[in-house]
């Protein structure tokens, strides 16, 4: 095919994606405006299978997640054509079909009204993203894709077990029937099913220790696909956890079993800390962002955990559960926005410099100013700093945790406050990580010729990024309006009043927690942002006021030597103090080899190598892998190659089966 | 002194005791550890005096005076004399990282609070939180003994543990009989003297510290 057909295919394909995403956003907004009524949209699909009815159901929860999918998909669709033109590494048909299929199956998972649609769409989502990951054909891509597909299918297997158990009990695939049948489940069986579902969805969400595929698969895909995978696919798994934990498997009345809430809270805290700790040590931009997704999924799970602990207990704790769930859902939307923005900027850097290693970049802020400022915005948002959206959802999570700890009794309250301290720790670590990422990549001197020859990204790429940045700023500055979006999902799952009644007691510009009881805390992001803006502008005027002394430029003082890029601080050096402090968790390996000259005091060559490997990978997965390999080799020794032996095996199996199941 | 005021003061002294224990755990210098232990013993004497004036129990005044004389003046002086005689290094060497020790101390405090919530009927109302604080002080004193190389720090840990036992005894209802308190103090003095003599002898004959002695095994 000629270049012209490539371009047309790309543009058409992405236009289809854009149209679909806009439609999705419209449907989602319509779904959330319907108020507190239950299933709003109930659309039966044509009967593909004779044994099951397929149906699409759109309620508040589905609509909210569909909105998140649509927003990122719109940005990706606008960004995609220019990115793929600069970065073309695979056939355009695969790219275009893949991304449309991917977005479509994610939307279908969210709207599925019965188990069969859900599983089929889930599988389609996995296959489409796998195709996009391995499309480039490099060896690292195929390896990453292999790990991804194996782990994803392990998770899907667990989900199938859960769904089949529920379907057998209900006698039908429909969610409504399942919900009805699950009401009569005995307690232990209900908990087992929930934990299996948590494990199955946890693989896809990237919960520690099931996160090992994430840092390999997300960087391998093209950047706008990584934005969709990281920003949205993880959220589809969160949707699954919410659907099972709070809707399908929830007991008919009364609080949820305490073990559910505690497990989710502990897993969330662990994922948050471990994700950000490993993110600090990466110097590949996309790998760093992938580890941060693990961290943010942890934060979302913390909000869900406290909501599960406090749900349906009556009185003040119901309001707090709604606050915690609202915080988790808002963080879902926020993360989709700022993670998408960061991945798209990383893609722009990749297009301009063909390099993602931070240690080879630098000084890009002067060559790509728009991308640099947008990356800075995303970095400030993900570090949960005011006045952007990351701070709003973390503020709400903190309020839910502290007010919740006062409601629970003493020991549990202390454990909840410990997880709040863990959340504060991850905030600090995330800020350190993004100072490193932004500073080493965009500031200072260019460290290689790639960085020196960088050019600004194409306007359509910038447009996609600006869209997501606008979402970040709007939710940060006007969070009260975002609470209205959260009404439908929270009321659907927990009943009672929605966040816009609980959290914005004094108008949409003021967020208030616990205002319905006790003293409560109120914060007005709009007023805070306005005052910050005024004071920063005043300071800017003072700084830039023309003075008689004037401004001049001079080279940086580097102790008398001519300044070159080797004087700039490297990313590895920036993260060294934290690597040293948390050495227990990192177990870094260091090898130093020296080559001396005539005398041992004269050094010819010094080779220094330091590794930080994911501990989960070493202790858990490598052991599992070697066990499976040994098992396979043991079985292999048994296979002789003669047909008589194989027939003998078949006969023995038949006899055993008849013995076991033949009677009755 | 009224009951409420005494209860408030003992609460404050309890938290100050926890503070001094944290400082001993974190101390990198022998002099700081010894002086902090003296301050801790002074706080114990103060607590005894407060409780004595609130309940009118003469025994508590005796114990306060005894603690003041022995553990605030005599034993620290003894330790400082050993340091001066032996010209020991001031720096405290640790067997496990200080942050790990602090984490274990936090866990110990949690555990004692959890356990003592079931022992509520044993304590006097006036002393409030003193029982769990006393028990955790005792256990953390043993933690100090376990995690420091320098032999002198083991003595400091023993004395701190001792303070914890006294504080626990004050918390228990009806108090401990005077004779037992004097007996415990006598044991501590004896232990300190024996340790001091052994350290001096070991240093003068072998020339190394007690922490290096590990040949006595099967």
């Amino acid at each position, binding site marked *: 095919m000629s270049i012209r057909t490539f371009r047309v295919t790309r543009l058409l394909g992405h236009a289809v994606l854009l149209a679909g995403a806009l439609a999705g956003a419209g449907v989602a907004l319509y779904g959330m405006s319907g108020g507190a009524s239950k299933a709003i949209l109930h659309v039966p699909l044509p009967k593909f299978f004779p044994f099951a009815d397929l149906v699409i159901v759109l309620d508040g929860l589905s609509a909210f997640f569909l909105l998140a999918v649509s927003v990122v998909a719109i940005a990706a669709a606008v960004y995609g054509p220019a990115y793929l033109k600069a970065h073309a590494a695979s056939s355009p048909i695969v790219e275009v079909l893949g991304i449309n299929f991917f977005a479509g199956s994610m939307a279908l998972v969210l709207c599925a009204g019965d188990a069969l649609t859900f599983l089929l769409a889930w599988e389609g989502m996995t296959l489409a993203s796998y195709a996009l990951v391995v499309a480039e054909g490099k060896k690292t891509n195929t390896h990453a894709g292999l790990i991804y597909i194996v782990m994803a299918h392990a998770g899907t297997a667990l989900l199938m077990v859960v769904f089949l158990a529920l379907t057998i009990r209900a006698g039908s695939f429909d969610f409504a029937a399942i919900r009805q049948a699950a009401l009569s489940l005995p307690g232990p069986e209900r908990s087992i099913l929930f934990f299996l579902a948590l494990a199955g969805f946890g693989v896809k969400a990237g919960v520690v220790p099931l996160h090992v595929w994430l840092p390999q698969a997300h960087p391998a895909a093209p950047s706008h696909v990584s934005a969709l995978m990281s920003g949205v696919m993880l959220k589809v798994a969160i949707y699954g956890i919410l659907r099972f934990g709070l809707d399908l498997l929830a007991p008919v009345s009364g609080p949820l079993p305490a073990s559910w809430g505690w497990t989710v809270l502990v897993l969330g805290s662990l994922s948050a800390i471990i994700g950000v700790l490993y993110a600090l040590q990466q110097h590949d931009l996309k790998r760093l962002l992938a580890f941060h997704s693990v961290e943010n999924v942890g934060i979302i799970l913390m909000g869900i955990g406290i909501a599960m602990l406090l749900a349906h207990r009556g009185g003040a704790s119901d309001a707090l559960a709604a606050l915690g769930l609202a915080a988790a859902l808002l963080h879902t939307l926020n993360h989709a926005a700022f993670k998408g923005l960061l991945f798209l900027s990383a893609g722009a850097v990749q297009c301009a410099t063909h390099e993602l290693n931070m240690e080879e970049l630098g000084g890009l802020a002067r060559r790509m100013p728009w991308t640099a400022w947008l990356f800075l915005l995303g970095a400030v948002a993900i570090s949960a700093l005011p006045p952007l959206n990351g701070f709003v959802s973390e503020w709400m999570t903190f309020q839910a945790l502290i007010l919740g700890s006062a409601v629970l009794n003493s020991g549990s309250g202390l454990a909840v406050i410990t997880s709040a301290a863990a959340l504060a720790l991850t905030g600090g670590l995330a800020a*350190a990580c993004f100072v490193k990422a932004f500073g080493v990549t965009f500031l200072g001197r260019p460290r290689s010729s790639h960085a020196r020859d960088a050019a600004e990204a194409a306007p359509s790429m910038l447009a996609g990024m600006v869209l997501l940045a606008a979402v970040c700023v709007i939710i940060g500055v006007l969070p009260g309006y975002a609470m209205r979006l959260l009404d439908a999902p929270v009321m659907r799952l927990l009943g009672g009043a929605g966040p816009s009644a609980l959290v914005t007691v004094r108008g949409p510009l003021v967020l208030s927690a616990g205002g319905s009881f006790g003293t*409560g805390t109120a*914060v007005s992001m709009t007023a805070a942002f306005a005052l910050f803006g005024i004071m*920063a502008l005043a300071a800017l005027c003072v700084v830039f006021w023309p003075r008689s002394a004037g401004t001049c430029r001079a080279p940086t003082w580097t102790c008398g030597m001519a300044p070159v890029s080797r004087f*700039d601080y490297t990313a590895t*050096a920036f993260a060294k103090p934290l690597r040293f402090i948390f050495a227990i968790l990192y177990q870094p390996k260091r090898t130093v080899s020296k080559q001396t000259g005539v005398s041992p005091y004269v050094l010819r060559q010094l080779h220094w190598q330091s590794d930080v490997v994911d501990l989960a990978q070493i202790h858990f997965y490598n052991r599992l892998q070697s066990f499976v390999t040994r098992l396979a080799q043991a079985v292999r020794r048994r296979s002789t190659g003669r047909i008589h032996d194989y027939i003998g095996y078949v006969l023995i199996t038949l006899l055993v089966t008849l013995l076991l199941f033949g009677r009755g | 002194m009224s009951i409420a005021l005494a209860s408030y003061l003992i609460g404050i002294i309890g938290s100050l005791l926890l503070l001094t224990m944290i400082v001993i755990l974190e101390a990198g210098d022998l002099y700081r550890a010894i002086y902090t232990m003296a301050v801790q013993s002074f706080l114990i004497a103060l607590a005894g005096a407060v409780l004595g004036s609130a309940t009118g129990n003469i025994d508590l005044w005796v114990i306060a005076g005894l603690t003041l004389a022995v553990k605030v003046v005599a034993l620290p002086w003894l330790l400082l004399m050993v340091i001066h005689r032996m010209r020991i290094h001031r720096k405290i060497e640790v067997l496990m990282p200080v*942050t790990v020790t602090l984490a274990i101390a936090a866990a110990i405090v949690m555990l004692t609070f959890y356990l003592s919530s079931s022992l509520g009927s044993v304590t006097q109302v006036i002393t409030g939180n003193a029982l769990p604080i006393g028990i955790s002080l005792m256990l953390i004193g043993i933690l100090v003994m376990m995690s420091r190389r320098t032999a002198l720090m083991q003595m400091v840990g023993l004395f701190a543990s001792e303070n914890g036992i006294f504080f626990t005894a004050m918390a228990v209802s009806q108090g401990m009989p005077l004779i037992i308190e004097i007996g415990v103090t006598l044991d501590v003095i004896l232990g300190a003297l024996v340790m001091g003599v052994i350290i001096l002898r070991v240093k003068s004959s072998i020339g190394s510290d007690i922490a290096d002695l590990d040949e006595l095994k099967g």
Partner: protein
Amino acid sequence: MELAKISWISALGQAALLVMLGPLVTGVIQKIKARLQCRQGAGVTQPYRDLVKLFRKGTVQADTASPFFRIAPALVLGATLAAALLVPVIFAPVTSGAATLLPLGDALLLLGWLALARFLTAAAALDAGGAFGGMGASREMTVATLVEPALILVIFSVAVVAGTTDLGAIAGHPVAMRASFGASDLLALFAMLILLIAETGRIPVDNPDTHLELTMLHEGMLLEHSGPGLGCLVLANHTKQIVLMAFVQSLFFPFKAAGMDPLALALGLLAFLLGALALSVFLAVVESMYAKLRFFNLPQFLSVSLLSAFLAVALRLL
């Protein structure tokens, strides 16, 4: 509403007071340190003269720096001033159950603004391209990481009782809480004093008077700035110091005016000044008594504050 308008004016007035007194506090600390070192030292108004000098000078910018380098100091000053609005200095009205009158922000937003200021300073430090800025930024962000959990635990140990994280509400809480400075508050105060040293960048965490790269954390980040940009960063540093002092006072020793009568306001102001003086003496004495800790011994020092804060919360809840 009348009272709402008063609250707005009082917030802005208190912030202006903090900004104006900030350099004076630094001057007092320098003077006390000098006298303890048996020398005369500069006058207590020297920081004001330094600021005026800096704002009159021109800028010398590194040739590799981007426009971000010149804009960052203004943003840092804006963030610190926004934080100054959130802490009650003299006036903290007693509320009767409803949420506070001025929903500007709470303790978490204050920490957030200070964290934003630190983020931007550290990022700008990497722009001039040299080892000083990078090392200072790396170390400052590490110390920030270790300090944040302890700060949150201190706030929560007070907020659990008050039921809110709003500083004005905590300071104006009914008498029952103010009068009972208990065991848990003592541990939290100990932790907060250590954190005050860490956040204001004083010995034993950081040396504010030196310019050797191995002993700089905060100063290392300011090294490449000059003229009005440096003036903004220095003013932000003074303001941050006095904001943190007011923060400590409103958490632990809140003697604030409950109404708008002049006598109460004067007493509130006097209480604040005395508290600031006490904390200044504390900081100066600690700086003169101790040596700066080796950087890799800092986690050990800061974990004492973490343990103290944790025990404070535990004592409060158990």
